[in-house]
């Protein structure tokens, strides 16, 4: 019975000024004073749960405050290679510091018997927005192989926080219209969902930058690079993989394929080699290159493999470009 009264209290709203604090069902126990206790309880849970684990990404527990603290995207980037798609707007995450700040303020206002609206609405909407971001981002991580399903990733903190935020909106006082509360309930998740979908579309429409415009992180001699991989391939792979590298050396072999693409190799005396793959738009620039030429090539290093077929090490580069011809 009591639950029914609470539910009615939360969802039903007064329809006129005269009934502002009187509810149509038998809600005699539910007065604005009780209402305050609900809000106070909700805001306390909201504040505590902000610092509890919300999701688990493999063995990493991620708390709500990781987002404004800047640890959310850095953790995802370092561990799973998924970074903030809009780093230029990275400062915007600071808005979520309002959640603990306003939660404390609301708590104080409740005991001072001061008006807590609109702070309750803003705090709860931000909380729901943040919870939605956590869910959507975790789902994207599942696509990358982090976890198997979203429910196994979610931790009690996010459930507590969400329930507290919903309760805070529904028990906000002085009582507002039902429609107002629904709008505040939906606002955070909808904004988060819309923003996330825009971000997702932006990321999926991105292409790799033209290698010509990129600055090489390392500039190395071809033979030295082969030696470095031969000496410790796991360390060299960690150092060079997926990085733009300039490699200088004497061409050992040029292969021009029937589809107008070109491969250029630098070999050492053991037969180990570096191979750069060029798309067909480079055909014209490469048409005069021949074995023996001294070249500087630039590309994204794919790392090395030990070929069972050739018995040698192969270091491959993709999205390659001609840096410069040193001498013909």
């Amino acid at each position, binding site marked *: 019975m009591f639950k029914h009264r609470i539910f009615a209290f939360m969802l039903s709203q007064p329809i006129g000024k005269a009934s502002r604090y009187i509810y149509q069902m038998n809600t005699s126990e539910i007065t604005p004073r009780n209402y305050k206790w609900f809000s106070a309880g909700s805001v306390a849970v909201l504040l505590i749960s902000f610092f509890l684990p919300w999701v688990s990404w493999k063995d990493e527990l991620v708390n709500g405050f990781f987002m404004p603290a800047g640890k959310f995207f850095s953790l995802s980037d370092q561990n799973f290679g*998924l970074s903030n798609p809009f780093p230029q707007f990275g400062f915007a995450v600071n808005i979520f510091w309002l959640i603990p700040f306003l939660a404390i303020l609301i708590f104080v206002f409740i005991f001072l018997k001061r008006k807590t609206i609109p702070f309750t609405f803003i705090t709860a909407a931000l909380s729901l927005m943040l919870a939605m971001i956590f869910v959507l981002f975790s789902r994207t991580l*599942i696509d990358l*192989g982090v976890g198997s399903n979203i429910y196994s990733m979610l931790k009690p903190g996010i459930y507590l926080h969400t329930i507290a935020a919903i309760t805070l909106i529904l028990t906000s006082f002085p009582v507002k219209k039902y429609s107002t509360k629904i709008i505040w309930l939906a606002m955070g998740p909808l904004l988060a969902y819309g923003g996330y979908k825009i971000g997702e579309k932006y990321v*999926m429409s991105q292409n*790799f930058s033209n290698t010509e415009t990129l600055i090489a992180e390392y500039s190395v001699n071809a033979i030295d690079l082969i030696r470095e991989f031969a000496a410790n391939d796991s360390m060299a792979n960690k150092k060079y993989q997926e990085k733009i590298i300039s490699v200088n050396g004497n061409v050992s072999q040029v292969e021009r394929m029937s589809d107008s693409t070109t491969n250029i190799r630098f070999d050492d005396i053991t037969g180990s080699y570096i191979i750069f793959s060029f798309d067909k738009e480079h055909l014209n620039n490469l048409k005069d290159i021949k074995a023996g030429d001294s070249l500087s090539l630039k590309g994204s290093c794919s790392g090395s*493999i030990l070929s069972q*077929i050739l018995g040698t090490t*192969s270091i491959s580069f993709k999205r390659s470009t001609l840096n410069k011809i040193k001498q013909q």
Partner: protein
Amino acid sequence: MKKTILFLGFLITTGSLFAQKKTTTSATVSFDATTSKDALPKAENKAVIGSLDTQTGELAFEAAVKNFSFSNPMMQDHFNGDNWFKSDKYPVFSFTGKIEKIGKVKFNKNGSYKVTAVGKMKIRDISKKEKIEGFITIADGKIKIATDFMLKLADYNITGAPVEAGKVSKTPKVRVLAEF
């Protein structure tokens, strides 16, 4: 001494002229897992290592997983990630097998032959027997191999949300082109 050097030189020269095992480091493997929902999972590796023994029909390919080049950075991350090909742990796709009835292929004159290769495909450390049909074309002394086939991802324990949601084809098209 001079005779020995001449004899060794003769052996090396004739050996390379009549070598039965041909190799390449520039074979191409294209991977197309696009669906009506997503046109991005598509890549190409143009530095695949291959070998063909024209006498026995033995055929082998090795492709560095990280060298598959995508247009979209996120899709490349997915491809190399734990749900797909786990390239950090399993850096190579390989195929080792044999072309059946290789004797019918006349490598010394121009022509095109439909052939079948039977062998083991190794992806994510899972070996599975595959039977792949393709063509061998001999043109002016060059041997070209071309094949198109479908790869069943589930055979190699590749599942996950994007595959189930239809964003990635469950049976991507694979095209191999090699010139020896």
